[in-house]
């Protein structure tokens, strides 16, 4: 046996075999399970009509919805449920736009209509919204806190909306707004909303906008007092800004 030629043949065969093995087509890693649907951000939303003019009887929130699996070339429907534990009533406090994932679409912002009802003046109602299965979609995923009406970091099946027509103290008042406007009162807050036109109080925004808001509030309070005398809050204290 010609040993040299044998070695050469063996090495060449291995090399060719290995190189051809690299040419084989990999199967793409694809989602192959049932189509599913979920909220792509978990959230608890606090909404108050009190920062809106009285002419506002309906306002719209947008819930983020996303599917798992490929888009299809037909409209598909999904289901939402307002849980029995909710104090907000579907069709009275809250209504949904058509629950449809349009063809060739992976995600939507679903309009949710909030209705200003007289009872909201002295109460807060809560809508615990859950995704439920439909003919087109199974449930998305939960990988965290679970349970009807609760949301967690990775709970993508539940959404909670608190609705009121009361002026509620912003959650960040004692950490943020107190530095600019002092002690909270509903009268002060209502005045601030009225003169600044600001409806979202979750953050201060940019420095120049914040300064303008503070300046505007002070100037407006000055003019108010010139015309009406001191503004007195619900605690009997004069409204002042530091």
């Amino acid at each position, binding site marked *: 046996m010609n040993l*040299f030629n044998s070695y050469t043949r063996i090495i060449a065969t291995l090399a060719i075999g290995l190189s051809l093995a690299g040419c084989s087509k990999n199967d793409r890693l694809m989602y192959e399970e049932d189509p599913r649907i979920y909220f792509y951000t978990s959230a608890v939303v606090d909404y108050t009509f009190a920062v809106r003019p009285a002419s506002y009887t309906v306002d719209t929130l947008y819930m983020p919805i996303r599917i798992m699996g490929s888009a299809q070339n037909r409209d598909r429907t999904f289901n939402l449920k307002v849980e029995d534990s909710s104090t907000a009533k579907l069709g009275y406090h809250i209504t949904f736009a058509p629950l449809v994932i349009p063809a060739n679409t992976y995600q939507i912002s679903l309009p949710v209509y909030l209705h200003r009802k007289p009872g909201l003046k002295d109460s807060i109602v809560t809508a615990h919204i859950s995704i439920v299965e439909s003919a087109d979609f199974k449930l998305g995923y939960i990988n965290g806190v679970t349970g009807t009406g609760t949301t967690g970091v990775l709970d993508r099946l539940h959404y909670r909306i608190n609705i009121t027509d009361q002026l509620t103290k912003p959650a960040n008042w004692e950490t943020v707004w107190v530095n600019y406007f002092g002690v909270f009162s509903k009268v002060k807050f209502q005045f601030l909303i009225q003169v600044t036109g600001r409806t979202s109080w979750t953050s201060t925004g940019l420095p120049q906008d914040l300064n*303008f808001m503070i300046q505007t509030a002070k*100037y407006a309070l000055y003019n108010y007092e010139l015309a009406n005398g001191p503004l007195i809050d619900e605690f009997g204290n004069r409204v002042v800004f530091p």
Partner: protein
Amino acid sequence: MNKQSFYISFVLVAALAFFAGCYKDKGNYDYTSVNKITVTDARAANRIFVFQGDTLRLSPAITQTIQTEGLTYLWFVYNNSSNSAYNLPRDTISRVKDLNYVVDSRIFVLGENYRLTLKVTDPKTGVSAFILYDLTVSNKLGEGWMLFEDKGGEGDVSMILPNNTIERKVYSSINPTAPLGKPVAINATSFSITDDLSSPGKRIYLLTENDGQELNALTLQKKFPFGYLYFATPSVVKPTFQGWTAYLSGVNPFQRMGVSVNNGKVHVNLVGGFPGIKKWGEALSTPDGGFDYDMATDIAGAASFSATYPIVMFDKKYKRFYSVGTTRLASFPAAASTVFDMNNVGLDLLKLDSSNVSGVWSAVMKDATTPYLLQFKTLATAADPVITTAKISMNAPGLTGTNVITASTLTPHIYYGAGNTITKYETTSNTTAMSFSFAAGETVTKLVYQKVVPGTGAARLVAVTWNGTESKVYYFTVSAVGDLGATYTNVFTGFSKIVDLVYKVP
């Protein structure tokens, strides 16, 4: 070949390769110096402003460690403005050592910044050396004194250029469809502003009796109407000041905060890298939440970034100083005042100006009969909270009857115009000396001390006069000891009544 022969051959080849490593390398590994080229030019240290159509001449010095003939030169340029794209073309404008180039408007766009590079290459080695120049395409109105004139109730701007030529009707010829009302004040920054209303750059404001506007600092075209400069247009528009304060970053001023005075009330503006446009906000309140004040337009702006009181202004109504913040005016702590009370001066302000001591401000004030010089600083510490430094009863005849005052920032002098005279007051000796007397009937209406005249390094006093029909502008060279000399160096005539002036830098 059998198996044994194969192994023998393999060992022989390996041994041959092994012993080949013992071969003595006869290569040349000595270091040989090559020609090192150095290119220098003092003009490359500062931005060069060029006009379209003008000739740009540059003669950099080139040195070589080994004199070599046949160096090649390549002058090329590309747009280097902050908002320019990365894929703009690079243009070669010369291939000789000394640049002598007529600025071509097809390459150089007005207002844009360019990076000009000279590449010098040694053809023997291929080694190159470079020098970089920063250019800005300007126009002849890029620099000079802007004179805000009152032409029968209508404003216009003339300019005195660095070459002492006069450009008249500058505003009206550029903005024929936007006539100005009765002029009040003009202001121009000498430093760049980042307000995101427009690209960063210098800002120029023209204020009239019931209106105002921002001018494009390059083209001098009307840029923004008065109301657009504010988040909400003030209900009463009577602007008297609009500008920007700065602190010193090294030796150069750097933007700090915008300040405007409208209808006697202070509005402020921000600068900074955060997003969103910056505009002037609502009027600032007094510490008690009121708006009962009438602010003078003079500003004491601290030179230090970390100053305790970055901006100090004077309320004419209650005759007191305020520290200006971003959302309100603030009083000074009691400990700040010993020589006089910053919160209750009790005198009328004639002029608030800088002094020859950095960080110390001079307020020329008066009561019914006597002028006073009050001085304060803007930096306080816990150990030394006092900012008031001096209150002097000034021995300065005629000073109580004028507000035509300017202070030297190099010598301890304050110049004031009274009637047709300019008088020099010395703060250290509390004495005055007559500096110059104009013709009878020619009243001094403005004085501006120019610390450094660009291109000369010398200080200059600029005087504006009005004789009832004509304004004139005079240049006086100020000596190292504050003297004006026997007479002026230049006079410029034929102006309508000049109500304000500012030096515009490109």
